[in-house]
């Protein structure tokens, strides 16, 4: 493999030599220039892969050299490392590619930054094959790479989504797409008929996650794609809700692992598309298994019980309030957060169950606690996709005292707080309220209270120091409690705005 050649132009000769020696020790070739004029000459003659310059380089300064070489087509893509005694603004600085370091230099960090920059620049500049999927399908492309025993990363983009396939000696080592990997990710990409691809040769160090041979993998993948298309009408609808049938009893032992995986996921009372998303098995296999389990009566399918569409959940004023709250905070980019503070995990699960009836809500498949069975739930449990490209995530944080630092740490872009109380947790009301107070010390946000089960309302109100005008919402009464609680919360946003 060609060695990385670095041109070093630092005013201080001792520093330049020390950096050159260090980089040489790390396997890089180095050339040094005492001033900007010589650096310019060497940059054109030698074609370095990286240029490290002093901002105060004699004859031609670092920034001037950068601008000159950026205009030359042979050197325009070369990443720059700027070294200076003080922070400076550099016109045309390419974030992620160029580096700015203040003296004193730490060589380990300098080397790490250069490696990363070369990696970024390399991924943009060394495409060996590129084209469109309409001209060459992914399966054909993989076969071609297999026959030529290629090594590198194949990036496939379609409809704004990008997936990667890692290939070594022509064999498929792994595939990544969003949160999916291995066969699941690869087979999803097989569905793409339109899009672009680019293959970048590079050494693949990732472990082999796909065990099947390339030939078998391609045949199996194409079979699943064909069958999925032809049997689409016979498979369960993605939006229908599946539940375990209590009358069916327990699932016998010794069946295929995918069956136990699906049963576990269905236990949470999920929509079909959530089960498909969360299972690590390829989509078609999951649909087929759900279908087979439904046919055997182990699970029941309730068509259209899931996501409701066609009715407005939030009014225009509420959406505007949320948008203002998000953009009013520092750096919010269409993403807000509602913190869930609860006395137990089951009450969170119950609240989420109600939320699933609301339009635009989806259970977060990347959730840090997929089973919702922990004592102290922590992580994102769901997201509302609101109109105008806004996301509102429901984020649960534990309220036991020694988790206090998490409250503020994860309350960025806070829109509101929902406090969830169940009858077993009435003794923890004070902790819950203390957590809320602590969060609101540094943030302004409205809050609502939701109770579940037999909770003494008077004692609860006293414990939470609620005024008569503040409502306690009750879960499990079939009155769209979650929706009402959210409306109340967002009305609080409006009030907050007025008071400002």
């Amino acid at each position, binding site marked *: 493999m060609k060695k990385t050649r670095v041109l070093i132009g630092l005013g201080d000769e001792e520093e330049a030599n020390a950096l050159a020696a260090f980089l040489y020790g790390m396997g890089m070739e180095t050339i040094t220039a005492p001033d900007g004029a010589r650096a310019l000459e060497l940059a054109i003659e030698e074609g370095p892969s990286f240029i490290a310059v002093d901002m105060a380089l004699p004859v031609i300064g670092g920034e001037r050299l950068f601008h000159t070489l950026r205009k030359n087509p042979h050197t325009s893509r070369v990443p720059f490392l700027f070294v200076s005694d003080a*922070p400076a603004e550099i016109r045309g600085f390419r*974030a*992620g590619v160029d580096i700015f*370091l*203040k003296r*004193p*230099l*730490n060589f*380990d*960090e300098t080397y*790490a*930054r250069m*490696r*990363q920059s070369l*990696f*970024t620049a390399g991924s943009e500049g060394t495409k060996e094959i590129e084209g469109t999927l309409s001209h060459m399908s992914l399966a054909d492309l993989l076969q071609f790479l297999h026959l030529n025993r290629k090594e590198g990363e194949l990036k496939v983009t379609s409809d704004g989504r990008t997936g990667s396939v890692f290939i070594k000696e022509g064999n498929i080592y792994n595939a*990544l797409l969003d949160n999916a990997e291995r066969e699941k990710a690869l087979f999803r990409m097989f569905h793409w008929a339109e899009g672009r691809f680019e293959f970048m040769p*590079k050494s693949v*160090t*990732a*472990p082999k996650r796909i065990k099947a041979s390339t030939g078998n993998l391609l045949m199996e993948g194409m079979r699943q794609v064909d069958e999925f298309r032809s049997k689409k009408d016979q498979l369960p609808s993605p939006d229908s809700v599946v539940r375990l049938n209590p009358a069916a009893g327990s699932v016998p032992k010794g069946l295929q692992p995918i069956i136990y995986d699906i049963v576990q996921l269905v236990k949470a009372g999920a929509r079909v598309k959530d089960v498909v998303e969360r299972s690590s098995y390829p989509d078609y296999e999951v649909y087929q298994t759900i279908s087979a389990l439904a046919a055997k009566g182990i699970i029941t399918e309730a068509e259209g019980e899931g996501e409701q569409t066609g009715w407005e959940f939030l009014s225009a004023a509420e959406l505007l309030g949320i948008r203002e709250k998000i953009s*009013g*905070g*520092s*750096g*919010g*980019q269409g*993403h807000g957060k509602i913190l869930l503070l609860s006395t137990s995990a089951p009450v969170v699960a119950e609240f989420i169950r109600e939320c699933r009836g609301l339009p635009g809500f989806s259970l977060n498949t*990347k959730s*840090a*606690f997929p089973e919702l069975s922990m*004592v*102290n739930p*922590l*992580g*994102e449990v769901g997201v509302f996709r609101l109109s105008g490209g806004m996301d509102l995530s429901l984020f649960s944080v534990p309220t036991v*005292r*020694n*988790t*206090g*630092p*998490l*409250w*503020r*740490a*994860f309350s*960025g*872009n806070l829109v509101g707080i929902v406090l969830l109380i169940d009858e077993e947790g009435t003794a923890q009301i004070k902790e819950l309220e*203390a*957590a809320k107070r*602590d969060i609101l010390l540094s943030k302004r946000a409205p809050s609502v209270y939701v109770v579940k089960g037999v909770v003494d309302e008077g004692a609860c109100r006293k414990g939470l120091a609620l005024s008569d005008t503040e409502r306690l919402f009750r879960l499990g009464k079939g009155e769209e409690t979650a929706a009402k609680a959210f409306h109340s919360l967002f009305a609080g946003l409006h009030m907050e705005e007025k008071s400002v």
Partner: protein
Amino acid sequence: MKTESAPALAKGLNVDRFYDGFFLAEYGRLEAARAKRYSSPFSTVLIDLGEGATEPAVLEGLASGIVAATRDCDVAGLYDGSRVMVILPETDYFGAASTVRKLAKELEGNENGRKAVFSHATFPRDGRSFGELAGSAIRKADQRKASVWEKEGFGGRLFWEILGELTSRNYKGFDYASFDAGAGQDISEFFFDQVNELIVREITREPGRRGIMYYAAKNLSSSLPVVKNLGSAGAVAAKVFLVGEGEGSIWEVGNAMPLMIDDPRLRETFFTFFLNDETAYAIICKENWGATFSCFHTSDFGLVEGLITKFQQEYSLQEQLG
């Protein structure tokens, strides 16, 4: 210029570009109006000198140092008897944080300067008027004075000494807390990984937001969930450093820079420091016998900033906060 600004100079102090409270408040008010009009950031730095620095001679020495460490466009002056404020036009949170570092370094040689407590506030995250920003900076200075960093005098101690202290004590607050994790404990040994994954998700959710994260673990590998999540995300503005010993593939992870530090202490203590303009969080876990861990975590900005600074200084890393 000197003639024009002379009446506004702080009374009795013979220091150029160092103004009195009235001028400072007026300038701050105009700067806030300008920031609102053009939607640009500006920051204030508050230096609480304490009671010992109210003597004109002492104050004069400190004021000279402050003026020398700031830019020509910055406006420094006496906020009240013992507090100095510097107005930094067109400066965001990170710029203010690096000014604080610069000022602290400048005043290090002065006995009263060493005792000074620094805080900063930025428009619009901490307030939309000069009064709100000043109030926010004062509140932060008070919090800083009450923080573990100041109380325990961590500023004068070594990085690993501080980590040892934090993991051996029992903290029970909202800002600082200790807990045991691992076998037989309420909190699982995976808590550390879980929190790190959530931090990475916060980073990737807002890719344009600047910040810094140091993730130190026993063995760095590209198969770690934190590393995988970072690698599969698009480009992020936050700087993420992976600290420790690791395999070759770690060099090819996107959005993260490995810092190969061969230090035996990193094999039994792992930590994460995360800081951006809205969030500060640090978690430190020390491995004990029998797969249990003594952990400490905090959301105190002062402590997290202090830990990051110490770590950078003692391992000669780039001084940066985002």
